[in-house]
């Protein structure tokens, strides 16, 4: 039984007075327990729309999302069903992942089982903080007192409170510095290993996905155009878009070597990927 199964999901955003936006055009993806699957795509490819549907924030236009074999219930005004709470998400923006007005301890306890006794709460908060490598004293503080990298750790700790078996990470290190980013990547890998979680890791950075994911899928214009084991994809990419993506990544070379190809004439007219549904 797969941990997370995305089955032919289509996401179409209807807009008033404009053509509908086909953000996701039939994507299927499976994540097995203990596995990290990477999803790579540039802005406008639909990966963020897919992430929201995968975790249940939005309802797909068609297709199913199955969590541990059972269909996932998208969020409604009712409380999220208990069994769905094993599917959690880590978001891109570390400055918006935590409410600025609540203490860290209070926010970490949001995902803890309701039946937790008062005395056990402090212990649980400490346990979560230790899992992500932060000091217990953080519980009494507020998000503004932490750096971006630390806030992302706190966001991960908050997700861990629900003891998730699957985590969808949507660009979790894009907004972070190199050091913080590397630390978070290592943290996520360790957690997956130690807690036996499955992870869907979404990023625009193919080299990052290569660093963390076992399997990689490349997304373009709402579809998955190539997928396979990460290292194999990197070495022997078949699809021209994947190849272009790889060539465009700047490497440290022995001489100045410009990335990409010399074919760019930026077009006008047919226009902006603004409002891109990525």
């Amino acid at each position, binding site marked *: 039984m797969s941990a997370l199964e995305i089955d032919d999901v289509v996401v179409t955003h209807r807009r008033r007075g404009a053509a509908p936006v086909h953000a996701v055009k039939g994507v299927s993806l499976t994540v097995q327990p203990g596995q990290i699957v990477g999803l790579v795509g540039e802005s406008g490819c639909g990966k963020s729309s897919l992430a929201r549907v995968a975790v249940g924030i939005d309802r797909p236009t068609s297709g199913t999302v199955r969590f541990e074999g059972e269909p996932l219930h998208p969020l409604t005004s009712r409380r999220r069903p208990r069994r769905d709470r094993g599917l959690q998400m880590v978001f891109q923006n570390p400055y918006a992942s935590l409410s600025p007005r609540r203490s860290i301890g209070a926010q970490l306890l949001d995902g803890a089982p309701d039946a937790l006794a008062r005395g056990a709460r402090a212990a649980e908060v400490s346990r979560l903080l230790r899992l992500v490598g932060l000091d217990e004293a953080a519980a009494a503080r507020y998000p503004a007192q932490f750096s971006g990298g630390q806030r992302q750790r706190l966001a991960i700790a908050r997700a861990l409170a629900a003891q998730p078996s699957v985590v969808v990470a949507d660009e979790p290190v894009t907004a972070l510095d190199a050091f913080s980013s590397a630390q978070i*990547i290592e943290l996520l890998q360790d957690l997956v290993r130690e807690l036996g979680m499955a992870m869907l890791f979404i990023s625009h950075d193919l080299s990052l996905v290569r660093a963390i994911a076992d399997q990689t899928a490349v997304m373009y214009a709402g579809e998955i155009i190539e997928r396979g084991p990460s290292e194999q994809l990197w070495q022997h990419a078949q699809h021209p878009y994947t190849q272009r993506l790889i060539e465009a990544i700047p490497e440290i070379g022995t001489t100045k070597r410009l990335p990409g190809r010399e074919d760019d004439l930026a077009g006008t007219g047919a226009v902006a990927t603004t409002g891109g549904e990525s």
Partner: protein
Amino acid sequence: MSDTTLLSIEDLSVVMPTADGSLELVHDTSIRIGEGEVVGLAGESGSGKSMTASAVMGILPEGATASGRVMFEGRDLLTLSTRELNEVRGNRISIVFQDPTAALHPLLRIGTQITEHLIHHTGVSQKQADARAVELLDLVRIRDPHQAVTAYPHQFSGGMRQRAAIAIALACEPRLLIADEPTTALDVTVQAGILRLFDRLARETGVSMLFITHDLGVMSAIADRTYIFKDGTVVEHGATNEILNSPSHEYTRALIASRAQSLAAERTHRGGAR
């Protein structure tokens, strides 16, 4: 290495008063940019690299003070009056920022934004400015520049907006172009195009560049010499690919080791792929 010095930053310090006392954002930093060179400033956010550029352009945040000297065309930019600085900025030294959307006026056509700028600084006629605007959009490789000058920023993609911002920056043929994380907000394929554009501009127009980024791969592709910033000072500098391939300072080594490519390489060596 270029012989003529275009910009010389000498012992620059930038201090900012805060509620917890004075904070030194940049400390005793010296940087040299030669004619026709592309010089890179690398480092994490908060390391002082952007603040250094802000000091050169005279756009430090409220309350911050700069000391030291910034010599450009025989004058110390830090001592210039606002009027004198306005004559330099956008004209002799231009800057391109990270967010192209914020750099462009949303309600003016691209052409107007270029011509307004040109006429203000150089006093050419409207007709001449219009022609130059088309030239500039062609220079930055925007397709169909005659059509593009009539477009509004929201009709452009992110990469095109950045090209338009570069066109505005180059309008008055500045001697130095400062680019502060110009590709960080762009997709990797778009970034590749912009980097190629910068390289070509440097070679064709002879403009010198001060290129700021945290991405060492980008630095390797574009910068002749690089200064590595840490906590407000320069910890290492030299020919870009020399210091990136054989770093002397442990901080440089750490920066290189934190890159995604390094992590990926590590993982492959550990045989982690399943």
